[in-house]
């Protein structure tokens, strides 16, 4: 009797869990299916698998030719790649310094980092724009300068989170390793590159992945700085398609898939780093 009830509750548990999993997977499957469907059919028959007559590559061809995806991918990867590298390098150095050195003002600097996580991008974007306009970076119409104009605030916006996560991990690196390296004649920079980075590799990976994803997915900052067609990055392009595609729903579905694919690849390959690293940081506080 009790055994039966336990089995039943177990089945119920799996049912609920699977239902939620369905809500997170099915929408993407639905979009992918419909991106291959003749555009008229989406509105009448969107649930079947598009085979035979209904199947088409047209949506992708239209998306690729009508919008400048190639350029937008290039801009996105330039921006997000640079942001990722800068965040990892700068945050890694700062986290190491804050963890290992004891000095006056250390507590204050740590609060500066924690406080920096509180500022929503809304509250800094206008002065940043003004500052970069004065420097001659923002609003010039020059593609490369505009990319730099996006990169700088995105680096700053990701730094605090990255420093906090990296500090947590560097703290757990046993200091004996560093001491023996020091006795072997390494200076602090050699210790950092040869001991700390390999030891905290997985947390560096987490930080890099998140910096990349947040930068790649961000629409707000990008729409402030990237205003000319040749500067547009992926999310900006998608936003434009959504307002211009009208009733061409196949085109929309194909565009969504084109934007999601790089992220999907990153996620499937690296999901262990993403989830583990994040929770380690978040729960530690």
């Amino acid at each position, binding site marked *: 009797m009790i055994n039966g009830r336990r089995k039943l509750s177990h089945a119920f548990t799996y049912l609920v869990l699977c239902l939620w999993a369905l809500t997170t997977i099915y929408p993407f499957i639905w979009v992918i299916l419909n991106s291959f469907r003749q555009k008229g059919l989406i509105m009448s028959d969107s649930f079947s698998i598009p085979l035979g007559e209904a199947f088409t590559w047209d949506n992708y061809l239209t998306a690729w030719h009508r919008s400048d995806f190639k350029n937008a991918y290039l801009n996105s990867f330039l921006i997000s790649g640079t942001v990722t590298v800068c965040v990892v390098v700068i945050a890694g150095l700062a986290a190491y310094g804050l963890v290992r050195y004891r000095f006056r003002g250390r507590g204050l600097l740590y609060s500066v980092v924690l406080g920096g996580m509180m500022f929503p991008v809304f509250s800094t974007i206008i002065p940043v724009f003004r500052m970069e306009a004065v420097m001659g970076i923002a609003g010039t119409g020059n593609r490369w300068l505009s990319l730099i104009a996006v990169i700088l605030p995105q680096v700053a916006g990701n730094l605090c989170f990255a420093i906090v996560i990296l500090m947590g991990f560097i703290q757990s690196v046993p200091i004996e390793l560093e001491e023996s390296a020091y006795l072997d004649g390494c200076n602090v920079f050699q210790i950092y590159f040869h001991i700390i980075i390999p030891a905290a590799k997985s947390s560096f990976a987490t930080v890099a992945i998140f910096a990349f994803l947040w930068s790649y997915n961000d629409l707000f900052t990008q729409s402030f700085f990237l205003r000319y067609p040749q500067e547009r990055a992926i*999310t900006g392009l998608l936003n434009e398609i959504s307002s211009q595609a009208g009733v061409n729903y196949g085109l929309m579905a194909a565009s969504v898939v084109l934007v999601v694919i790089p992220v999907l690849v990153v996620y499937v390959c690296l999901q262990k780093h993403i989830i583990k690293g994040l929770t380690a940081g978040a729960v530690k506080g």
Partner: protein
Amino acid sequence: MNSMIYKKKSPLLIFLIPAFAFLLVFLYYPFFQNILNTFLQIGGLGRAPEGLNTPWYENYQRLVSDPYMRTALKNTLVLVLCTVIFQVGIALILALLVDTIRVGAEFFRTVYFFPIVISATALGLMFNLMFLYKGGMVNQLLLSLGRLPYEVKPSGKVIVQWLDWKDQAHFLFTMFLPVMWQYVGFYFVILVTGLNNIPEDVYEAAALDGADGWKRTRFITLPLLRNVLCTCLVLAITGALKVFDLPWVMFGAGMPENQGWLTGTYMYDQTFNKMNVDYGSTIAVLIVVLGVVLSNVANRIFRPSEDL
């Protein structure tokens, strides 16, 4: 203990200067300049201020009397409330359920977390397709379930009364559902980690005392999870105040009929489209103040006492 290696402080400058220079120039300076900007008159994005507003608190006066601002504030607060209840609530239920199973926990974690890594812009477009007026996914589903009224004309043509998911009666649901859905997995993962950190012997002791099932959850798990839950709440509140991309892609500037503003989208529209830059700054200040106040309230209510 580490005095030997780290006594010489000069390398510290190289470690710290890049990061803190960035934070100072691109985070702290703009943040305080932004507060100053609310008192100044600024003619356009990137332009120099043209002196003080008259009166100097004009923007705050406007903030109080602006009816769209009131709508934005109301919607945002409803969104905060919904995220706290549904986002964290669903995440908690799912986390408690996953904690009881052995097979497949990894799979559920991967799948639940997936929407978070997708750009909200792409999700917005996807949900636009799903909530389409004529023949969207949801409406097709309703039609096939017989939940939409339709009539067959003598000519054989079927006229369906589609449900407009973005009209005045439904837009809050359509706007909030994707926002809440996207981040459930985030809190789920944090809560599962919190659950894993509860030592097994606590449960064993409870089992000896006869606590089982719901009782165990109510009196052991939830109190021990309180700290993590509180972290989730603060993250959910500040996250809800930052929402921009999804509603902007799905609803644009305040659709329907200026009922659909959120503080984030209204700030963007005022700054970027209406060129009321100093007023936009004021809205941004309000967003910060709201975040600080609300997360403090959450902390007051839910943060457990030190000895727990």
